[in-house]
């Protein structure tokens, strides 16, 4: 195979910066999802001009390019499924400027998500999107995948905070979308198109993000239920009563039990479900809202409602939620983490369907997550070395997708389509809907060099495969 493109890159970057040794290429072959694909070269970038250079070479020689943040993707976003070049953006992490008068932040793509919120915090402001990996993940990755998080319930997700972008197109041109103003209707909203496009349309080199005043006060409560379905009804009732908590997180019995076995915190192990609710805002309003929610929860048959008195006790409860992930993998090592999302009124029905799927395929299915916004996280705990089990898991996952779509929901709330969910796109979007997306891709990236093999099916991913080997 001719490697003229490699020579071209090496002559522009120098041999040292174009990593091609086995130990390096193999170290950029994975993310936090499934599968491992070895790229031919890895380059770490620090400026937009460097990205322009790489894309011009790649476009000329039609070589696939895979932009990558810190590789925390749960959907295969940065996996180099067709070889080629991985661009590591994570080291370009030093440009971060807060403009408190304009209530905006300007960041380079490698800046960590949590660093943005910390920088805003110095001015009494906050950047709300809070994916649980925010201390690891980069803003570039969050923008590409349009990440969410628990606070999405009240504050929305990444796309709700992006007002302007600088992007390098697949042909190596630098463009700007949006700007620094909240209102902007000049032409098509390319900003929103790029956010969540999973790196298939362009490479983001700078983002202008909106920040908001930090709430002064917050309070946490825990509600215990003897039925998951009732807990789902409680969520719907709270949200239709003129109340908007910052977070409503659900833990089902399997996750409660797993946490208690892992690190006894004193959770009610006999409960079918617990809800963790956080309300934020002004102190008086928060207290009043907590009272109202308390009333609703009792009315709907919560067997117990706990309102911690100290911040330590609150942290203890949130710690329990954080421990779900490590605790459930104690049983078996592989965690298939889904994020199918349904309209909020459909939460109880979705939970019933998930229970049925669990029974039907005898899979170890645990449900927890950001229930308040309909973004449940059904996780299947399995062992990827067990082929027979993994086939059952594949079937169960496919049926979870179908269940969500049939209830008017979506395949993915916040993890992205990537490689794994691509085969199910048509089910949700229909033929024409999917075709419009393909046309957009073709217009932006005629040579299909940017993150090929994602969102749309190709030879590598025309069906869901989770089994190992």
């Amino acid at each position, binding site marked *: 195979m001719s490697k003229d493109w490699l020579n071209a890159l090496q002559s522009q970057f120098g041999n040292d910066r174009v*990593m091609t*040794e*086995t*130990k*390096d290429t*193999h*170290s*950029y*072959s*994975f*993310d*936090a999802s499934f599968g*491992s694909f070895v790229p031919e070269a890895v380059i*770490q970038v620090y400026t937009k001009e460097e990205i322009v250079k790489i894309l011009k070479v790649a476009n000329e020689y039609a070589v696939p390019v895979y932009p990558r943040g*810190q*590789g*925390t993707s749960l959907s295969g976003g940065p996996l180099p499924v067709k070889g080629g070049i991985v661009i*590591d953006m994570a*080291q370009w992490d030093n440009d971060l400027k807060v403009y408190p008068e304009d209530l905006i932040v300007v960041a380079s793509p490698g800046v*960590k998500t949590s660093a943005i919120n910390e920088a805003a915090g110095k001015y009494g402001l906050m950047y709300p999107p809070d994916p649980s*990996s925010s*201390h*690891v*993940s980069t803003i570039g990755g969050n923008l590409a995948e349009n990440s969410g998080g628990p606070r999405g319930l009240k504050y929305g997700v990444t796309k709700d905070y992006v007002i302007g972008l600088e992007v390098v197109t697949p042909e190596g041109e630098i463009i700007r979308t949006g700007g620094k103003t909240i209102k902007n209707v000049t032409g098509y909203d390319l900003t929103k198109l790029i956010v969540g496009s999973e790196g298939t349309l362009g490479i983001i080199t700078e983002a202008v993000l909106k920040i908001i005043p930090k709430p002064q006060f917050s309070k946490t409560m825990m509600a215990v239920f003897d039925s998951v379905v009732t807990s789902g009804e409680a969520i719907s009732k709270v949200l239709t009563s003129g109340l908007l908590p910052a977070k409503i997180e659900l833990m089902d019995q399997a996750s409660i039990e797993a946490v208690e076995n892992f690190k006894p915190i004193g959770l009610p192990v006999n409960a079918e479900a617990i809800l963790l609710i956080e309300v934020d805002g002004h102190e008086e309003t928060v207290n009043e809202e907590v009272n109202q929610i308390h009333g609703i929860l009792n009315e709907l048959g919560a067997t117990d409602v706990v309102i911690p008195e100290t911040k330590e006790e609150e942290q203890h409860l949130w710690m329990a939620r954080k421990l779900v*992930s*490590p605790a459930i*993998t*104690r049983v078996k*090592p*592989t*965690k298939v983490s889904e994020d199918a999302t349904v309209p909020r009124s459909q939460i109880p029905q979705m939970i019933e369907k998930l229970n049925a799927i669990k029974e039907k395929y005898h899979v170890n299915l645990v449900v927890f997550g950001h229930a308040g916004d309909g973004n449940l996280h059904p996780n299947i705990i399995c*062992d*990827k*070395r067990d082929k027979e089990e993994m086939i059952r898991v594949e079937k169960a996952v496919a049926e979870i997708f179908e269940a969500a779509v049939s209830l008017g929901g979506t395949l993915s709330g916040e993890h992205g389509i990537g490689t794994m969910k691509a085969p199910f796109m048509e089910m949700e979007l229909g033929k024409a809907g999917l075709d419009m997306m393909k046309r957009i891709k073709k217009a932006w990236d005629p040579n299909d060099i940017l993150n090929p093999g994602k969102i749309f099916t190709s030879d590598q991913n025309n069906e869901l495969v989770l089994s190992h080997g």
Partner: protein
Amino acid sequence: MDKELKQLQEKINYDKTFDCVQCGYCLPACPTYETMKKETHSPRGRINLVKEYAEGKISVEDLKEPIDKCLGCNACTVVCPTNVQYGKILEGAKHVIEEKRTKSKKEEWVENLIFDKVFPSRKWMKRIGNVSWLYQKSGLQSLAQKIKMTSIAPLHLDQFEKVLPDLPSPTKRKSRPKVIKAEGETRMRVGFFTGCIMDSVFFEINKKTIELLIKAGCDVVIPETQTCCGALHAHSGKVESSRQLAKQNMIAFEEEHVDVIVNNAGGCGARLVEYEELFTDEQWKEKAKSFVEKTRDVSQILYEALDQIEFTRPINDIVTYQTSCHMINVQKVTKEPFELLQSIPGIEYRQFKGYDRCCGSAGIYNMLNYDDAMDILDKKMTHVKVSRAHTIVTTNPGCLLQMKLGIQREGLQGKMRAVHLVELLHEAEPVSKERQVTAISNNA
């Protein structure tokens, strides 16, 4: 599957690599990912390479450098949400690399000297203690020339030599009794694990450790047949020598019937608490279990005795603390040194950013990977300087030497100092309260 591959998988703890879900939560915790800036040098990156090697996808040469460059600080295991046994995977990989490696004459000579002659031998350690460590007058220099190592520079011993303390005279060392009685009433009988470097280069700190222990009501016993803890051997893939050293130590302390086995070196302590995992046969496993249950860091004993001692000399100084990775991440001893420091009157404690990250010393890592270790150290020193502390407290000889080196590299000699926790506690002139009370009542 190929039989050889299967054996390899067992040795390398291949099964444990499946616990890693590659979430990346280890990245911010890893000092080498921070300074080397590549997944190749991140914990999940290394686990992936070990796994691929065990599957026959990459060669041992591909694996070697990333494994060699790991500090083994275990910071990743603390933040890991799925409890991956990284330490086990790393040791498995080192063991296999060590077996496969064809060594050059020079490497063999250095290793033989370090692992077979120096660290297990008390005689050698004494000799090292009596002269400058591993270098100047031990004949190493001339030996090095004889075998055509043109200089000792690859190990950068000259750099370390500059920061070594004044060494005690041989008479002073010989005069140490084997059993030292507690001041006042005996609360417990402790066996003192002296450590190799601690008992040579830092002999004075060991002396002060004993003095503190007797004030805390301990009878201190120093078993003569104790030897090196075996940490450096285990971290270099020399499993069998590590096991032999463990056996010798277990016997040495068992014979003395002590209540507690105390050490003052975070790295050695971490090895001692892992002895049980070295054995599969019941008898030795049982012995190891009892040994591990008795093992404590000196700070744990002194912390428990805080109500029995009083510091009589205030230390008006700004102090910061560089933790020992093996002490906090493996032994899980975290709060005691803080509490002890803050109990000293006069002290202003200031924590620096990244105080709980590896300093780059990591056993003999700073000798084998000098430049990488200095990158890590220099980064640390920028944070130390921000704290404006005058004294850096450590709890392990490797860290102590490394921080001394850091001060020298910054040109801060005379303005900043690095000490062992024991030295600072000793400087505050603790007295046994009980003894004080007795003295007062005698006067009356």
